[in-house]
């Protein structure tokens, strides 16, 4: 269509002038961009703002951006009739009677206050005009985080609680994990956090640990706890740190937690005597208290019916009461004792054989450790005959049988007479003119008294003479009990101590256990704490091996809990 555009301008001396231009186009586009048929500048005018086209007999105005005022009211599109006034921004456009040859005529009254600098409005020249925005991005990010980081995990928690399977794709509360689980736990628990974290905002309780670890019990045994004003020991998690990297740190082996209780003296342990501990190395640690066995006679006359009671005593004061007569010094003295065979000096390991656990030793027995040297022969003329060990009655019977047989056997008697006389003691010298049985009994009696009171049993054992008429019951041997574990609550690895610097073997043992000059079996050969501290300390020092409390002390006491095997 042919459109006449008539622009009204102020000529000089204020007389309005008309500037006519002819637009021949199907559509008269209006906007601030350069490619518009009618280019109008202004802040509120878009690059392609509106367009006017012929529709039937009428002109139709349609807005592509925003709205325009047609005869005063805002409209997005409108049918135009002659005389209509369109306000675009602050410019006025009036539809006037077209002259002949024109389909339409528009009279434009531009706002002369708008200058060319408004041309910028035709373009997008600032990031603000692009899709980019700070707020939307921020809100989207926040929303996303809240959904993925909070909502979904919470849902997962609920599902776990309800024991419903969580879809594999769904980000569960694993997102909340602050680090990997230790292998065992991972295997046992997997991603079901609620197994341990039972209620939100509550620290993992010992109960949830106990639900699996039933055999482990508290640091303080309930019966002991009763004696103190203490409450139950703190959370497992104080020492057992999960989600730690690397997972080797599952146990916090630091002394801090231990000392927290055991250091401060005002911490009341009630009637338990628990000496305060400052640390290890440097007089921080009290002297060891060994667990010793103490013989106890329930009543005087049954003196040989002993019970053994355990008692704890600081090792610098304590004495051994095993009822054994034994001198380590003697056995280590080469002038007196040499090993059978190579004739070398005895080695600790000859008697004390380390058990597989490396902590304790095989029990010492007559048969295993002594008899190789100490045979129980009684008649030099019959070196192959030995007394039975550990059964006093049998000893008497054995002797009676032996002498009876010896005397009533004629050729044996003749043959053995002289030889028998030579070593015979004074009273055995007296001639026996009684019946053979009587003589045999007398010899047996003599030999029995000899074994129990002069040499023989009496060498190692304590013997009680009960003056009983019945010879078999006359002598009682006090039973022997050697302590097997002086520190049941503590751990010590002998194997790792088998070599002390240059020292090895027995020498290594002797560097801690002062056996070489122990003459009495009552000597307690346990090294004092100072000995340990000469090499160990709780903090890294020169020439010191660092040890923490739990190196020696087991935090969880053993035994006394159902279905638990004591070692």
């Amino acid at each position, binding site marked *: 269509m042919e459109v006449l555009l008539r622009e009204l301008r102020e000529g000089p001396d204020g007389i309005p002038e008309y500037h006519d231009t002819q637009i021949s186009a199907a559509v008269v586009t209006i906007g601030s*961009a*350069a*490619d518009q048929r009618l280019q109008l*500048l202004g802040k509120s005018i878009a690059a392609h703002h509106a367009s006017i086209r012929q529709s039937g007999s009428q002109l139709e105005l349609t807005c592509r951006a925003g709205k325009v005022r047609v005869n005063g009211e805002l409209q997005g599109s409108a049918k135009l009739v002659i005389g209509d006034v369109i306000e675009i921004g602050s410019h006025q456009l009036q539809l006037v009677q077209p002259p002949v040859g024109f389909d339409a005529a528009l009279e434009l009254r531009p706002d002369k206050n708008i*200058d*060319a*600098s*408004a*041309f*910028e409005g035709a*373009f*997008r*020249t*600032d*990031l603000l*005009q*692009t*899709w*980019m*925005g*700070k*707020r939307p*991005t*921020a*809100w989207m*990010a*926040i929303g996303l*985080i*809240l959904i993925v*980081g*909070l909502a979904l995990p919470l849902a997962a928690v609920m599902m776990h609680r309800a024991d419903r399977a969580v879809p594999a794709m769904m980000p569960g*509360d*694993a*997102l*909340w*994990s*602050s*680090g*990997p689980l230790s292998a065992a736990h991972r295997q046992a628990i997997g991603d079901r*956090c609620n197994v341990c*974290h039972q209620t*939100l*905002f*509550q*620290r*993992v309780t010992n109960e949830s640990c106990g639900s699996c670890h039933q055999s482990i019990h508290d640091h303080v045994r309930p019966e002991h706890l009763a004696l103190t004003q203490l409450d139950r020991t703190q959370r497992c998690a104080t020492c057992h*740190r999960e*989600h*730690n*990297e*690397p997972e080797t*740190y599952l146990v*916090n*082996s*630091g002394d*801090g937690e231990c000392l927290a209780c055991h250091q401060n003296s005002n911490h009341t342990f009630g009637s338990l005597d628990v000496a305060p501990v400052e640390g290890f190395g440097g007089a921080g640690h009290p002297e060891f208290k060994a667990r010793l066995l103490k013989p106890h006679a329930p009543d005087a006359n049954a003196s040989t019916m002993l019970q053994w009671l355990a008692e704890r005593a600081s090792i610098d004061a304590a004495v051994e009461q095993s009822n054994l007569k034994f001198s380590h010094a003697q056995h280590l003295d080469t002038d007196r004792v040499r090993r059978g065979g190579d004739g070398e000096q005895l080695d600790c390991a000859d008697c004390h054989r380390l058990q597989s656990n490396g902590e304790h030793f095989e029990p010492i027995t007559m048969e295993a450790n002594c008899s190789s040297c100490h045979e129980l022969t009684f008649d030099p003329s019959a070196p192959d005959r030995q007394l039975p060990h550990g059964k006093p009655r049998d000893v008497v019977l054995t002797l009676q049988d032996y002498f009876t047989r010896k005397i009533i056997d004629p050729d044996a008697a003749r043959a053995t007479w002289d030889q028998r006389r030579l070593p015979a003691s004074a009273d055995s010298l007296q001639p026996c003119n009684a019946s053979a049985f009587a003589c045999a009994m007398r010899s047996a009696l003599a030999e029995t008294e000899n074994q129990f009171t002069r040499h023989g049993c009496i060498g190692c054992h304590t013997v009680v003479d009960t003056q009983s008429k019945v010879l078999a019951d006359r002598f009682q041997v006090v039973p022997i009990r050697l302590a097997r574990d002086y520190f049941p609550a503590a751990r010590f690895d002998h194997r790792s101590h088998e070599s002390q610097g240059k020292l090895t073997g027995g020498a290594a043992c002797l560097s801690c256990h002062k056996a070489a000059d122990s003459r009495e079996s009552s000597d307690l050969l346990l090294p004092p704490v100072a000995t340990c501290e000469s090499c160990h300390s709780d903090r890294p020092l020169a020439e010191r091996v*660092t040890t*923490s409390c739990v190196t020696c002390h087991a935090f969880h006491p053993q035994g006394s809990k159902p279905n638990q095997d004591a070692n």
Partner: protein
Amino acid sequence: MIHRGLLRYQGARYLWWALGVIAASVAVYLSQDSATQPPNGGTWQGYVLGTLGALLVAWLGLLAIRKRSYRSTAGTVQGWTSAHVYLGSALLIVATLHCGVQFGWNIHTFAYALMCIVIFSGFFGLYSYVRHPQLIASNREGGARSELFAELFELDQQTRVLAQRCAAGVAIAVGSSIERTTIGGGVSSQLFGNDRSFFIRGDGATSAVARNTDQQPVIDFVAARLPRAEKGAEAANLQQLIVFLCRRQTVLRRIRRDIRLRAWLKIWLYFHIPMTAALVIALVLHIVVTFMYW
């Protein structure tokens, strides 16, 4: 010297503060013995560093408020910004020490990652704040952008009028080149100053749309017509036309460069700010979750 950049505010006072913070955090970090426990957020040192970091984030975020609380007398905004820059950089170290360089696919590391995005976008912003104003100023040579657009508009009008007096082909080419000149536009166009201008080249009979990058083609097109000009008058017009077009070219270059520089000056904020918002939320979540699964 009267003007001082924000980095040299008060002789870089806050640089020293930041170094102090870093030193302190390193000391705290080293104070944990890794023999019994690994250094991470779980130890008391970890908690201390974490609290410090959280407080730092909160304070850094406060700049948004302080910048707009215009009556506040708590220091100057420049001081705050300077401190924001330095302490923000320090935060990177504090947070790293807090987490003991332990990462995983979890909300905690996510918060850390966000923090890194924020801080590094901040570094970029700092760079552009230091670099670009200089360039913008020299590019505009003291004139405002609106002045450039005004000149462009006038040039368009004059060029059009002049082009009408030339041969049809030229008129079409020049007219179309004006109509189809693009400035700015979308994000990428603004950032990289893409020029998607076209013009219709043709000799009256045949015509084709051709690229008009940097307006050079249309200038060449018109120039090519010069020797074949019939009358002297047309030659004169063409020459004048070329002058206009060249002027247009320079003006357009300047406008585009201005738009590009400004876009680069501002773009970082479109990451820095939203990510900060996200970071704050993630941080809160990180703290809540830590105590939710205590």
